[in-house]
């Protein structure tokens, strides 16, 4: 296999202009992702993890450093990089099928489109709901539609920005199992941002822990527990501890200073 990394992020800095001066959102972020890998990024809100995803997808430019996917520098959005948002962001005036159909970037025949849409409805376990409007679907089902919409182009990289953050706890666990199944089936490289530590350990081959203000990579942990993972496994819990201490160490320090 090609030695070069699939997703390559080197010395990335990003600042936002705010009213009272510039705000540094990302500072010297470095990350390399292999093809087919499932990488989870955890961090407190405001640590710039969503910003990093937006840079990778090409929704935001103006940063310094290098981001390349498959040896190509990023110049705006591309069909090879899909994105799933926290909200399903389905268009309420389109049915589930039509919403999925909106995902097509390349021109293909209607017949082929229909076939691909049907396949993807099956992939996300929504058979029989193709003609439903978003408001007739539950939150979890809406997110399934949005996953199908992102997958119709067969993206090489799928970025997910807290995709299950708005779902209830039980649906969230169900969706985590679903996304694993889809990942194993489609072999898409996944980059998932979350603030749910448990979710990150359950899904990721590697976990990137980011610290906040300015956002930077604090720690990268390899998770070598076979999937599907038992959430009460000893190693699992150990990794959890490790992430907790990495995330909250800084705050404990602050506390000590305050005392």
């Amino acid at each position, binding site marked *: 296999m090609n030695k070069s990394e699939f997703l390559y992020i080197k010395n990335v800095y990003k600042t936002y202009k705010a009213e009272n001066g510039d705000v540094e959102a990302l500072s010297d972020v470095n990350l390399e992702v292999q093809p087919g890998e499932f990488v989870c990024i955890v961090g407190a809100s405001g640590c710039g993890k969503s910003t990093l995803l937006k840079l990778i997808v090409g929704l935001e430019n103006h940063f310094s450093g290098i981001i390349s996917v498959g040896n190509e520098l990023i110049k705006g959005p591309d069909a090879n990089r899909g994105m799933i948002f926290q909200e399903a962001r389905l*268009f*309420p*005036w389109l049915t589930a099928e039509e919403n999925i159909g909106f995902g097509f970037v390349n021109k293909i025949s209607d017949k082929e489109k229909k076939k691909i849409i049907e396949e993807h409805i099956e992939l996300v376990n929504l058979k029989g709901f193709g003609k439903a409007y*978003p408001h007739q679907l539950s939150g979890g089902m809406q997110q399934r539609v949005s996953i199908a919409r992102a997958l119709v182009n067969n993206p090489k990289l799928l970025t997910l920005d807290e995709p299950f953050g708005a779902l209830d706890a039980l649906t969230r666990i169900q969706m985590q199992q679903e996304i694993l199944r889809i990942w194993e089936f489609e072999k898409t490289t996944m980059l998932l941002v979350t603030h749910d530590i448990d979710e990150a350990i359950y899904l990721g081959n590697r976990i990137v822990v980011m610290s906040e203000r300015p956002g930077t990579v604090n720690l990268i942990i390899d998770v070598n527990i076979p999937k599907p993972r038992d959430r009460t496994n000893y190693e699992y819990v150990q990794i959890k501890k490790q992430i907790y201490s990495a995330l909250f160490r800084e705050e404990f320090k602050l506390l000590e200073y305050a005392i």
Partner: protein
Amino acid sequence: MLTSKLQQFGNWSGQGVKYFHWNKNSGYISIWVPLILLLIWEGLCRFGFIRVTILPAPSTILTTLWSMLKSGELVRHLGISIFRVLQGYAIGAAFGIVMGIMVGLSRKVDQAFVIIFGLLRPIPIIAWMPVLILWLGIDEGSKITVIAIGSFWPVLLNVVDGIKNVDKKYLEVARVLEKSKFETLTKIILPSALPSIFTGLRVGIGIAWMCVVGAELIAASSGIGYLIMYSRELLQSDVMFVGVFSIGITGLLIDKILLIIEARFLKWNVNSNL
């Protein structure tokens, strides 16, 4: 209760308006309150408390209505007025939609027209009537133009509003999926502005209907406004009231029809009223 009902009847923007409620709490109150008022009115006329030359009894108005319907006189006048409304409204609404899309999409166009629109919009529509008669004569042209102007504003404002309020999150989805500007406009911006556009169209037709009557009151030889004016001159107060009430009924019907069309188009809109 009564005042809120009255407000609803006079509320042309009509969002959330359901004209008649049948539920257990209010019973048939929306039916029997007007009925009692009609009975009182009838009684006051019968017993001579009201001069029937000024305010005829409801029964007289109904009889006149029936005979005018049979002779075809009412339908003829109404038909002429409705035809004028349709012509003027078609022009005004079309301009409103096109202009609204341009203003809503482009900051430059918005800035170019901000003073012009700000200055023209507060002018009462009827104030245009003498000007238009001077320019276009007392024929159909001036009436249709005044209707067009009247329906233009509400359509324009609501279209602009609908387009500017498109959820930025939807636009982000379009960018990730590399959609062209044209596709973003037709597949995201316009559909999401549609509820607002429909509100504009409904307010617009209400105002168009008011404009035609206003224009006919000033200068016309046919139409429902003319009927009212002419019957006043002949002291036919019953004909006058037939005219006045048929304006109300037609307006209500037009609004209902638009609501039904809207419901067809906006099946997906969970916030809709129907």
